[in-house]
């Protein structure tokens, strides 16, 4: 039986390879490798897709966050509120501008718990970075309410969530700006690092355009220090090709997730389907106390899984100077022990989905003869 790897980028690229190469060829023929038309075209299409006025292409999702904070003048002495269960880059971009990340625990949906945000606000707080983790939109209404009441910037970390919708609005269009990654493992993925920032704020857009290009106002003059963080024209051309397929891919992922929820909901704790919102399932994360055993069982049966992420940011060695301890964020820390990401990519076949379902089910059936796993979702459904 063929293995089911956790990711299989080859399956995504084989059918669209010719189209990608044609796009690359177009850039080569024009020999405009830095910024220029291809980048502008992609920016315009992303802005349209996210329903914002502007989009600015940069070198990575990390840089999207970093440059947004910079453009808002956030730096030394400032605090930025975010979550400890994201990919490291959310926090490191705050550190990179010289500010201090202040963490807030998450809820059952693995996203920032709005109830905890307000008590973390101090006189130094300048911004909130809610993370649409796993591709599920954060409950943005309370976040925006708190932010407006305290005059804080909201930078959406939508690195995993392109295409997700909250109450009918695209993520990246709700806060002051949205930061996206197009890393190869994302649903809208470049063939290398890439990122983009969406915003309706013209001033922000103008600052970002200058900051990403070494602070240059024009070829010869600069009035501010900047960075070199441009979206490559080649990657922009590739991404423009892929953007056409994005909604198709997202729908396939949603259908895969729905299948898992239907068929695993009685066996293990699965995420909620999102109701009126549109989660895009960058990852499909189940939770079980028997996580490590289940992962081993799936591995033995040729099914790849991942843990996003096993060590919370506040417990990393790099975060030592921030002074957090184990126990500070109990929900996040507990989830770090129980979460497991199943393959959910758009190319999975029904047979493969069934194999994942059967393998997970057989694991718990064997266990359940002796151990009883809490069936939270089933219990909830019965309420």
């Amino acid at each position: 039986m063929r293995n089911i790897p956790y990711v299989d980028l080859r399956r995504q690229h084989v059918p669209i390879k010719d189209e990608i190469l044609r796009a690359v060829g177009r850039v080569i023929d024009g020999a405009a490798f830095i910024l220029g038309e291809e980048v502008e075209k992609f920016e315009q299409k992303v802005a349209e897709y996210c329903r914002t006025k502007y989009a600015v292409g940069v070198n990575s999702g990390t840089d999207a966050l970093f440059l947004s904070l910079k453009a808002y003048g956030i730096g030394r002495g400032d605090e930025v509120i975010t979550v400890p269960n994201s990919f490291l880059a959310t926090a490191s971009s705050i550190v990179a501008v010289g500010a201090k990340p202040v963490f807030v625990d998450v809820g059952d949906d693995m996203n920032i718990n709005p109830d905890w945000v307000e008590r973390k606000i101090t006189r130094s707080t300048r911004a909130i970075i809610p993370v649409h983790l796993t591709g599920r939109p954060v409950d943005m209404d309370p976040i925006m309410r708190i932010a407006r009441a305290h005059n804080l910037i909201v930078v959406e970390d939508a690195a995993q969530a392109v295409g997700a919708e909250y109450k009918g609005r695209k993520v990246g269009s709700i806060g002051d700006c949205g930061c996206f990654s197009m890393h190869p493992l994302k649903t809208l993925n470049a063939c290398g690092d890439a990122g983009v920032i969406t915003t309706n704020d013209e001033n922000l857009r103008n600052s970002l355009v200058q900051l990403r290009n070494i602070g240059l106002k024009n070829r010869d003059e600069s009035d501010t220090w900047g960075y070199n963080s441009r979206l490559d024209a080649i990657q922009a051309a590739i991404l423009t090709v892929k953007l056409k397929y994005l909604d198709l891919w997202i729908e396939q992922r949603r259908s895969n997730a729905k299948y898992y929820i239907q068929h695993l909901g009685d066996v293990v704790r699965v995420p909620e389907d999102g109701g009126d919102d549109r989660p895009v399932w960058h990852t499909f994360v189940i939770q079980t106390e028997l996580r490590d055993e289940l992962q081993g069982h799936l591995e033995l049966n040729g099914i790849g899984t991942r843990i996003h992420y096993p060590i919370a940011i506040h417990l990393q060695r790099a975060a030592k100077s921030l002074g957090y301890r184990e126990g500070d964020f109990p929900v996040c820390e507990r989830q770090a022990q129980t979460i497991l990401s199943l393959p959910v990519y758009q190319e999975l076949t029904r047979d493969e989905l069934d194999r994942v379902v059967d393998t997970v089910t057989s694991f718990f059936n064997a266990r359940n003869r002796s151990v009883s796993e809490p069936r939270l979702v089933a219990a909830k459904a019965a309420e």
Partner: protein
Amino acid sequence: MKTMSAMKVEFSYLRRQFGQARRGEDPGRFYTDRIIEDIRDFVETADFTLGEKLEEFESKFSELVGVKHSIGVNSGTDALILSLKALGIGPGDEVVTSAETFIATAGAIAATGATPVFVDVNDEFIIDADLIEQAVTERTKALLPVWFTGNAPDMARINEIGTRYSIPVVEDSCCAIDAAIDGRKAGSFGITGTFSFHPLKNLNVWSDGGMITTNSDLMNEKLRLLRNHGLINRDEVAVFGVNSRLDTIQAVVALRMIDDVASITDQRIANAAVLDRAFSELPGCIEVPSRAPNVRHVYHLYMVRAKDRDNLLKHCIENGVEAKVHYPIPLPYQQCCRHLGYKRGDFPKTERDCGSIITFPAHQYLTDEELHYIIDVVRAFYGDNWR
């Protein structure tokens, strides 16, 4: 002055290197088809981030420069920023560098939070080693000499100063791939060397790209962490880092060209020699800087000083010679440097240069006809003045 018969000598050679223009005409130099073939295979492997091809390119680049380690990063600017960060440089520190360089040299220093301290140049557009020592203070944490235009700073002197004051030397060798002093390559003198593969460099990729070279195992280890979020492995983080990786797809592009770097560079040097000879015959109009015989100047920019520069520039453009000025405003007087408190007169040579320098195309694809056309256009501008 009459307008000369129409010919167009472009500054950028990218269309000739990669575009349709030379297909069939000069297949030996035509990389695109082969690279596209390589990319076709590469895309199928989907090995996009810190992949095998990047490692292969890094090791070939180490061979080229003659160092132990090469670390691929997102740009030449990032190569500088990460080098300084790896040395622990930050707010309150000072870094001594040249007043005549691209903005990114100083921008990289500012990006770490440190303060750029500028030193004037010699007659060859290169940091004046005699002036470095007086710029050193207790807060100086690095010397950052620039191989501007592809020409060499006095690295022996600068390393000696660095050793005496225990200050590390980082080379801004972004313009100087394959440049050398007495056969020793740029990027092998300092604690790190920094390179750019921006499309107009003599080893170029199809986007931004950069590389750091070092003989230090410790720096190598730190830099590999820093460029990749500080990740020791998938799940553990040693330090807060950044995302600054050279795209593996760009390593695929570079691997097709790295073996040709020496011959590309030789061609630029030969072109520069032709221009040097011709311009030397225009004393009082064009001032060709002296060329040190032991230096392999790679002419990323072919730059001379010219009388009545602005009008010469205009004349060249009108006649289809795409000359440029690198750069018209002294870096210490840019608006972004205002808080540093420099004033007119602080950098006399840099100021003189900004008013008089002009850069001519000297790239490897120029034909003899084009080279002579450049010379003719310049001669025509000065008319009888030069005889």
